């Protein structure tokens, strides 16, 4: 119903390092603050904000998973931040009946033109990642804009022309750049670390990439410590020899 561009000049997106993310939610709240308070996407409402069932619109959330290996190795905990992945084949765009959902030709960002959004929710159904949220107060669909009002905003210092979530991430687990440029820092990071697509079987060709957790609990090859040999006087013998050398 709404066409995707055949290609985009750039493919801006995020690279999220699951080996480094500690699940602190800094990105979640920085996103909320910026996009509710200062960006055209806002406000992002919070209903029943101090009540029994608080429910707010967030464009980025952290999910925590526990993985229990079948082979008896230690259980793992993975913190998994998730926002719109700005897919090349974005089903949320093609399903949109009004053209409100769009993928921008110049940079590949998937956006919602709220003036045209009728809040039908089809795009949220079509997104396999659950990355869109219908704001009940605005009645329109909200989603990650990659802070498009920051990244091209000449009023901001150049170093701040990055998404709010990337700017704030304390552990440095979030990276932003052009994934269409194989020489970009993010592309190199993806190559080095074996960055992966989320749910590739959905054939959405997401722009955002995840760097998988490195293997854990690897054996360090240092030899186990041996007690000092008794025939050389044990500990006291070692002490005397060592002191003599100092």
């Amino acid at each position, binding site marked *: 119903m709404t066409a995707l561009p055949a290609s985009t000049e750039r493919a801006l997106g995020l690279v999220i390092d699951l*080996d*480094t993310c500690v699940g*602190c939610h800094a990105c979640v709240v920085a996103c909320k*603050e910026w996009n509710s308070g200062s960006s055209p996407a806002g406000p992002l409402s*919070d209903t029943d904000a101090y*009540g029994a069932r608080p429910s707010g619109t967030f464009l980025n959330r952290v999910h925590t998973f526990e993985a229990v290996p079948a082979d008896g190795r230690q259980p793992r905990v993975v913190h998994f931040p998730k926002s719109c992945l700005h897919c090349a084949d974005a089903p949320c765009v093609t399903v949109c009946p009004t053209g409100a959902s769009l993928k921008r030709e110049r940079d590949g960002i998937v956006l919602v033109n709220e003036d045209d959004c009728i809040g039908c929710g089809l795009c949220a159904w079509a997104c396999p990642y659950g990355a869109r949220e219908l704001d009940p107060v605005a009645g329109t669909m909200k989603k990650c804009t990659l802070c498009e009002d920051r990244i091209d905003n000449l009023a901001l210092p150049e170093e701040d022309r990055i998404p709010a979530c990337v700017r704030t991430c304390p552990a440095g687990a979030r990276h932003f750049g052009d994934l269409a440029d194989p020489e970009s820092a993010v592309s190199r990071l993806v190559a080095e670390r074996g960055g992966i697509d989320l749910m590739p079987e959905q054939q959405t060709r997401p722009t955002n990439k995840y760097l998988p957790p490195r293997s854990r609990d690897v054996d360090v090859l240092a030899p186990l410590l041996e*007690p000092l040999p008794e025939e050389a006087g044990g500990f006291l013998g070692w002490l005397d020899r060592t002191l003599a050398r100092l």
Partner: protein
Amino acid sequence: MRLATEFRSIRHDSMREPDVPDTAPEIRRTTCYMCACRCGIDVHVAENRVHHIEGNRAHPVNRGVLCAKGSAGVMQHLSPARLRAPLRRTGPRGSGEFREISWEEALGIAVNWLEPIREQHPERLAFFTGRDQSQALTGWWAQQFGTLNYAAHGGFCSVNMAAAGIYTMGGAFWEFGAPDWERTRLLILFGVAEDHDSNPLKIGLGKLKARGARVISVNPIRTGYSAIADQWIGITPGTDGLLILSLVHLLLTSGKIDLAYLMRFTNAAWLVDQDPASPGFGSFLRDSEGRELAWDPARHRAVPAADVARPALSGGFNVGPTHVKPVFALMAEAYLDPALAPEAVAPACGIEPEVIHRLAAELADTAFNHPITLDRPWTDHCGKRHETMVGRPVAMHAMRGIAAHSNGFQTCRALHLLQLILGTVETPGGFRFEPPYPKPVSAHPKPHHKVTPGYPLDGPQLGYPRGPEDLAIDADGRPKRIDHAFSWEAPLSAHGMMHMVIANAARGDPYPIDVLFLYMANMAWNSSMNTAQTIGMLTATDATGVYLIPKIIVADSYSSEMVAYADLVLPDTTYLERHDCISLLDRPISEPDAAIDAIRWPVIEPERPGAEGVRGFQSVLLDLGVRLKLPGMVDANGKAIYRDYADYMVRHQRRPGVGPLMGWRGEDGTGTGRGAPNPKQLARYIEAGGFHIAHVPEEAAFFKPWNRAYQDWAVKIGIYDTPQPYLFQLYVEPLARFQAAALGHGPHQPPDALRERLARAMAPLPVWYPPLSDTDTDTYPIHAITQRPAAMYHSWGSQNAWLRQIHGENPLYIPGALWESLGFEPGDFARVVSPHAEIRVPVARMDALNPATVWTWNAIGKRPGAWSLAPDAPEATRGFLLNHLIPETLPTGLSNSDPVTGQAAWYDLRVRIERIPAEARSAPAFPSEMSPVPRAPKLVKFRAG
């Protein structure tokens, strides 16, 4: 541009923002206070409204980043739980019924209560502060008032860590030291949850990850930092000390220790009196000039330790009639003991012996096969020049997980011992102090407790005792302080014991108090052990109906649970509306390479339309001091010396030329650390982004306790008045002196009932013993602990519309095997029983968890009616506190605390659990209190423009 945080609900019309013309926001740089990390923040402000808060890129603590709490600061600032006027209680305590009064009336009441106390019984004011970051002021104020009953919250926070660090190394973890993030190859975290020093830790972990350094986390629970650790060791709570001493055992038995470091930088060679009949038993042997002695094998006699290059480290010697041994010989006797072998300790620790063997091997390999050498000459305190700086790239960090146990002090000591035998403290790649640390015990005050009605106390209340003669006890050996700090029950309680104040005051032990004055401390809820009964103590009356604690003054910014128990409430501002100084005299924000202090300033003017309004607590305290005519706060004519806290920050001098703020001192503003008060000082801080940084010279960056350039620099900027070089104390003599007293030596003798406990706990070399309340482990086999979430700080987060959506509930997490054996299903509740009480709470399964441990997030549960939450908010209906299960007093009548420092032993808790069907709400449930603030809005739509 208007801030359209739309408050649709009733009674909030006064908070509606007027329409104002569009104005571009201005950036005002101040210091965050969403936790104790104290990052620099850029607050974008227009028309006295916050548009946006982000990290200050130039700030040395957070370098531009900001955590979830920091970014949610705007919701804290706009919280509907903000107090808006002084309050006088009208209903019974705990009802939440108040009337709003004027500041004049409030201060008049406070003066009427406090003035007669000061004239007659200054000790009957108990002034305790919670998350106070102005202890240099509050402690001074209490001293000028004349009460000995002052402390901040360190007693239930982490005095074990502070005291063990200061007594051993002259500095501690927490925010007072840091790993050498740029160089370390191996970081081991012990019991570190996502709190102090939160953003620097996250930044640092990111650096280690980026360059492939290893991170190992020792923690019963695998969340947060433990989740990304290369190795997780899911230890059983309370056994870290055993694991650490087993590592010490392995390193010693294999000769993998840095002997040269121990000889040069520690008291390894000092001789210890080993004659049990000697009055000096356990103390160091000294010459007539007081110099510690070591054994010179070449001359066959004891000589001043500084005069012998190769002292004896083993054996025993007779010096006159006294048998002595070097500290290192005592260490070898203690730690070569096969009882510390991995195979012996592993079952108690809940880990495999092999894990300990591998960890020891990795420590030794990293430390000794990968030393770091910096081509950076330095000169030691004896004047000897060294061409390089050599270090061992093993770093450690530890937090409450090891500290909040009744064996926590000795466990923290054990960890420092491990660091020291590896030669990793203050060396490249290791652990580094942050100014004003290193600072030896000798540079700290002793506790003061001499009360004279109508006059100031004889000195600061808190300090570091050197021996039994420094205790705050009366002639009969009974505690002089209301919290029993510095008594035989907890001799080295350097931060006081706030957690015992209410219980002791209600019992009148050692005497009743008249006014309990609390600042920012939620003692009626999550900051007390035994919460339900603590509430009872706050409301208990004598036969005539008078409250056992007759008068309670609470200063806070928000409608906390404690506010409802106050008779008089002094409403504080939010952190964006106030002056503060983050001072080198207090808890600064320094980094290893720089001394740093900072300010807060009112980037927003406080507005509470339609109400009397709020005032910064520190200014109110100074105002009270003037009304009480306290020395130092009024001049000879009784006039105020300081206009307000901001004026005090600039003009107060602790020593000539040294005041709360180090930056831009002197009349021309060129002095750092020293110099006359500069009236333009705050303006200079504001221009500079809210902080001042004084860089440690490169040659002074490591080996600080013995580095002449560091010592000279520290004197230059006013940290010390003279150089304070010292050696690390493997063996701590003040502990030995208390131990000797317990064995019958000396004029100051403990009660007989405490002798055995003191003799064991005050061991001068680190030991491990089981947590003191582990008396019935068969009936209560499960450990129950809490952990602080990264996105919530204490109880503050619950009022935050954004953060409470992240942590609105706190199930009890149950390890997989236990979950299955007890037949739990999702949605169930558990009945959790301790020897003290029971709770019934929702559960969830977690497998990355020590199999004998259950846990939950700290301080999520709320009392209905508090914090401006709806009474049916999940925090109140499903959230819960473990605190109810933890007694503040053990069956022995002693506090549930570490016997050395008095640190509250929260994490000693043991329980049994059983599955029960889901209940409507967590138990115990508390009746709803009336909210002293207007109802919160239903809908929030935060909008800056």
